[in-house]
């Protein structure tokens, strides 16, 4: 099955809602799929990766896309 990449734009959200929305999106995805989370709340660049990692999903990257905005790529594990 081909890997699916899904985009989640949660700019404007703050913790813990950034994590909660990312978690809900991951729950709808299949193992191996990649979620690209778009945030503009800087603490979320730490809280979202750490939270999903505790649950066993793989954080592929955290990168600034432009000033004040970041993309977090997460691969859902089986």
């Amino acid at each position: 099955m081909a890997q699916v990449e899904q985009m989640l734009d949660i700019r404007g959200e703050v913790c813990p809602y950034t994590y909660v929305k990312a978690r809900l999106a991951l729950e709808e995805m299949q193992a191996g799929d990649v979620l690209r989370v778009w945030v503009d709340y800087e603490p979320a660049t730490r809280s979202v990766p750490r939270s999903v990692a505790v649950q066993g999903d793989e954080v592929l990257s955290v990168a600034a896309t432009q000033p004040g905005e970041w993309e977090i790529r997460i691969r859902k594990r089986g």
Partner: protein
Amino acid sequence: MAGASQPAGEPPLEGVLVFARAEFDRMLAYLRGDVTEERCGLLAGGGGRVTRVLPVPNAAKSPTEYRMDGQEFVDALIACDWEPLAIFHSHLAGPPLPSQTDIDSATVPEAVYVIASLASEPPSVRAFRIVAGRVSETELRIE
């Protein structure tokens, strides 16, 4: 737990995790509270010292695996400022060693993974770091 020379098959020893006796006993009391399903949670702290035990319900409701989720998990993460010092869980019958499932799902290289085996009394407790599938043991110190 392990000495300077490691027995064959034992993980190498790296680092120390320090508990106050009260926090260690609090963690064990919670883990002993259910012998039908694994229990789990987060440990808050810094500098290798545990300051708070944060139980989280096992969403997997399984005797052989654990998964943290829901509002209790979010609350525990917030209490850790989103950076848990350690992640703990019980093994009901197996040894206090990471199972293959534990290794595969260990995606926080900065955290210590504490495992308590309820197969013995008192429970046997060991701690590990798991980085990219490589397991090393962390010394547990109770003060």
